């Protein structure tokens, strides 16, 4: 007699039950549950089959050649693909959560708007404000006042008017003094139904206040014109800060489209996040950026040291009177004060113009274009594994140059003043070495790419490059 496994029928019952419950109770988050718990079906299935085999073995019945038939493995593969897809869509990608996690309210509901009655609290001895708002926007503004004022509007997505009204009653915006802190809460966590509440809260505080904002999925969080410190924590939020007197700490903003801070007198610390763009302009204290940002980083006028630690790049700059632009493929800096240290282990072209103090540059892949402009020169050590190197030195600068390429052409504007050696093998390669006056050691090297040493004519970098490519000067070459 052919023995049949219990796993097949049980699996069918499980799937049937899941569909039945999902049609009878559409409000239950069954897709979430399936996405999270499907691997336990594999474990249960395996355990059941194992148990059956052990029982047959104990009873002395003949065992199947394979514990799992070919058809069952096919089903396992399908289950893994569907389960992983569900998990990926539900928990890894926000658009997936929107699409698959959408319930009836999101699909069929309407949006109802409510105005939040303005709350006023006399601050007394309080010196800071805490704003808690899970969904929606937060705007905190400093003003010449001795009160904290909270108002704004609420948008509630619900199937009908009465549901929205109930949700509005459950989520009142409250403001109260608690010790040295004024707490403004939007109470979205009290919501019991399926309605979606998004609160846009506007808070006015005395100018000397410190501000703390706790959110979850916020469209934007804005703080401006306060003299105290600012601290923001949210799973996802775009942050805009302007005119802040104290330190700024964004240690817990896990995901952001944009972080913008301008006119901050204290330090700026952005840590542990994933996001796109960062814009920092006129920052008085140290700037620390630690995380993975895939968009544009625009940094201007930083009075104190800058430190960026990413997945693929590390940067230290002592001061940034000028500006830095950085994206996944390029780094450009103008008017920087060193010591400057940049290492990048992904393809990235680096262009630095007008810098003083020492420069240390190490690239895995990418062109290097350097133009210090300032004299006296400081020590430079720049290396790329794969990319062109071009250094333009001030006409009257003193230096001790050690430039080399393993594979590529060499070009030297200084003529006989520097010794140019060109290898004769078919990949090219060579070096430009020598001292002009008593100056610092300048090392520029590439393993694969052309090497160019130019004399600075004072023209802007881009124009200089165009001119030089048209009017390419081949130096006298000392054959090796």
């Amino acid at each position: 007699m052919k023995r049949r496994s219990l796993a097949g029928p049980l699996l069918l019952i499980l799937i049937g039950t899941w569909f039945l419950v999902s049609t009878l109770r559409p409000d239950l988050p069954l897709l979430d549950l399936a996405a999270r718990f499907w691997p336990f079906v594999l474990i249960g299935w395996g355990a059941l089959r194992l148990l059956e085999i052990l029982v047959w073995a104990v009873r002395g019945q003949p065992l199947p050649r394979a514990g799992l038939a070919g058809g069952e493995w096919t089903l396992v593969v399908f289950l893994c693909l569907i389960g992983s897809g569900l998990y990926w869509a539900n928990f890894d990608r926000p658009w997936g959560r929107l699409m698959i996690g959408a319930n009836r309210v999101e699909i069929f509901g309407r949006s109802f708007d409510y105005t939040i009655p303005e709350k006023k609290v006399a601050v007394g001895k309080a010196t800071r404000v805490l704003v808690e708002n899970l969904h929606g926007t937060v705007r905190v503004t400093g003003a010449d006042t001795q009160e904290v004022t909270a108002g704004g509007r609420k948008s509630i997505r619900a199937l009908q008017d009465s549901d929205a009204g109930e949700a509005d009653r459950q989520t009142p915006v409250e403001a109260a003094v608690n010790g040295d802190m004024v707490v403004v809460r939007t109470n979205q966590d009290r919501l019991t139904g399926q309605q979606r509440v998004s609160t846009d809260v506007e808070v006015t505080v005395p100018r000397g206040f410190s501000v703390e904002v706790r959110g979850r999925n916020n469209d934007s969080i804005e703080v401006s014109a306060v003299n105290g410190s600012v601290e923001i924590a949210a799973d996802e939020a775009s942050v805009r800060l302007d005119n802040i007197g104290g330190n700024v700490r964004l240690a817990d903003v896990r995901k952001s489209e944009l972080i913008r801070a301008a006119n901050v007198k204290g330090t700026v610390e952005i840590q542990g996040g994933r996001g796109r763009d960062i814009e920092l302009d006129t920052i008085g204290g140290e700037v620390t950026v630690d995380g993975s940002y895939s968009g544009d980083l625009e940094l201007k006028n930083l009075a104190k040291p800058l430190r960026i630690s990413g997945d693929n790049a590390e940067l230290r700059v002592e001061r940034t009177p000028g500006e830095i632009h950085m994206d996944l493929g390029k780094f450009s800096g103008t008017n920087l004060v060193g010591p400057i240290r940049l290492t990048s282990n992904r393809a990235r072209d680096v262009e630095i113009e007008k810098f003083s103090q020492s420069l240390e540059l190490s690239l895995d892949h990418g062109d290097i274009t350097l133009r210090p402009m300032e004299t006296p020169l400081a020590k430079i050590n720049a290396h790329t594994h794969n990319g062109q190197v071009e250094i333009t030195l001030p006409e009257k600068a003193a230096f001790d140059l050690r430039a080399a390429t393993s594979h590529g052409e060499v070009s030297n504007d200084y003529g006989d003043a520097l010794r140019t050696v060109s290898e004769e093998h078919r990949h090219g390669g060579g070096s430009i070495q020598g001292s002009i006056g008593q100056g610092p050691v300048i090392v520029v090297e590439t393993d694969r790419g052309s090497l160019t040493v130019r004399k600075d004519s004072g023209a802007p970098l881009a124009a200089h490059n165009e001119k030089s490519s048209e009017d390419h000067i081949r130096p006298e070459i000392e054959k090796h």
Partner: protein
Amino acid sequence: MRVNSGDLIRAARGPLLLIVLGLLFVAEYWGQLPFYRTWPALLIVYGLLLLLEHLAPDSHKPAGGSL
């Protein structure tokens, strides 16, 4: 009929691999250990089971002595 241990291990191979596969996904979702790092465990378990099967006494050979 007496079942030999080689047959038992061979029959249990599929279910055991299925359990390990499920555990690896659980480790990814609940233990932050991504599947792309842990998948070699499947090969190791499969290899161990093959080894055990190979080492198990073979009941198809006549037991003891020779004709």
